[in-house]
């Protein structure tokens, strides 16, 4: 049975393709996961200059309530900022910020088909021979993101001062925890007090921060090449060490203790990033940003639970991160604070 979104999406796209006729949307199916956006793949068909054409595309639509509340315009523009660069991203096609066409805002993008994103698959043992290559690509690309000129995105994203990056982020995530926590979080609160008492130095430069750069948010192939960097919905301008710290925070080792992102040692990851970015990762500053990212993670997990508890989104994807990660995130903080 065709998905109910297919004719509505076809009508929307037909309005965007003035030279096309017989526009169809088929094989629309929801992709597993997607706690912050509903993600669907589909096949677009159309006729142009007498020829039948088709293309595999992705629809990213806002859910009724999200694990994180972000602007789809920001995500859309972040992808576009890296089009045609050494940072592999899918082509962005159309952004709709109104509720009319599909009930919630959405965008349509190219599907980078034929590759995998699953961290469980990557770290299953089957890819062990290429993990060093994945690690080299992963942190080289992150270095390229850190190095990039943020100017094109200033139109869409606030630009904090170099010495204000840390405070803006910590204020933001602490406020979300204040709003969303359903139970006291002593470890997280202790980490926040420590972060405020020991602020990092000013950022070396203002960078585009991906915001969720981790194993699981890139597309890889069996040879260890990375073909797409995904999930830019938390992107913003800030300290480049923020992304590096997120990539190193312990929950993203997926149980492969001591391995950054489950892939290589932290020292190797940092060295790759420094070579690619031309920036320095001061150990004390990086420690601050890694611990901060544990607080940020906790903000996301309790926010996910809050969205479920308030009834805004009762999907199981909202429960699993909270159950699986709230205590693990506390343990990651204890580890980084030298208590575990």
């Amino acid at each position, binding site marked *: 049975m065709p998905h109910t979104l297919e004719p509505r999406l076809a009508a929307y796209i037909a309005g965007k393709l003035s030279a096309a006729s017989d526009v169809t949307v088929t094989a629309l*199916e*929801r992709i597993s996961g997607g706690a912050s956006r509903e993600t669907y793949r589909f096949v677009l068909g159309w006729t142009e200059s007498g020829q039948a054409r088709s293309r595999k595309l992705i629809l990213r639509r806002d859910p009724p309530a999200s694990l994180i509340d972000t602007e789809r315009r920001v995500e859309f523009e972040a992808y576009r900022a890296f089009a045609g660069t050494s940072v592999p991203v899918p082509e962005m096609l159309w952004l709709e910020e109104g509720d009319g066409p599909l009930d919630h805002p959405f965008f349509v993008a190219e599907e980078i088909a034929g590759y995998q994103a699953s961290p469980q698959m990557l770290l299953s043992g089957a890819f062990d021979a290429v993990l060093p290559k994945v690690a080299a690509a992963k942190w080289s690309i992150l270095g390229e993101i850190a190095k990039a000129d943020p100017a094109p995105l200033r139109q869409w994203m606030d630009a904090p001062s170099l010495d204000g990056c840390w405070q803006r982020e910590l204020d933001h995530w602490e406020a979300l925890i204040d709003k969303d926590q359903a139970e006291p979080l002593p470890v997280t609160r202790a980490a926040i007090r420590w972060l405020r008492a020991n602020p990092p130095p000013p950022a070396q430069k203002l960078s585009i921060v991906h915001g969720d750069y981790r194993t699981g948010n890139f597309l890889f192939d069996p040879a260890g090449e990375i073909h797409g960097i995904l999930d830019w919905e938390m992107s913003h301008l800030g300290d480049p060490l923020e992304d590096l710290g997120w990539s190193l925070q312990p*929950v993203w*080792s997926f149980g492969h203790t001591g391995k950054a992102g489950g892939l290589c040692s932290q020292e190797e990851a940092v060295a790759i990033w420094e070579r690619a970015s031309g920036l320095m990762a001061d150990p004390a500053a990086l420690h601050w940003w890694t611990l901060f990212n544990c607080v940020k993670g906790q903000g996301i997990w309790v926010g996910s639970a809050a969205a479920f508890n308030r009834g805004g989104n009762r999907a*199981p994807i909202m429960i699993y991160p909270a159950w*699986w990660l709230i205590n693990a*995130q506390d343990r*990651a903080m*204890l580890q980084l604070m030298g208590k575990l």
Partner: protein
Amino acid sequence: MNPPVVSVLAELAGLLMKNAAPDVPPAERASDLGLSAALLGVAAEMWDRQAHILVEENRAIRGLLGEAGEDADLRLSVLKAENDRLRAALIQAQAAAEAAGDVARQDAIWAELVASTARRKLSTAPV
């Protein structure tokens, strides 16, 4: 556990009913059932030990706060409400110990916080 196990189980029951219908798209059914199975596994793991964890933790925190008393009502909702009250008080106690430079008290509180995360640790947890 946050969200509470009871409300999650009720939601999963409804979700399984929905997925019993023949017209659910296969990819959505696979996603719903896979995640539901994972959540049921977590609930099963916590079922037997949840009350013990809360009683043990409440006793330890009362000791740190110098409070007398024991948990008399062993319903999980009651134990959890008391746990929330005690952990909120523990946050205040730890902040006060930091402000006072009371290292011994800080160490005792850290030891309990480490123990609490060990009690709550899931077998599949990444840390």
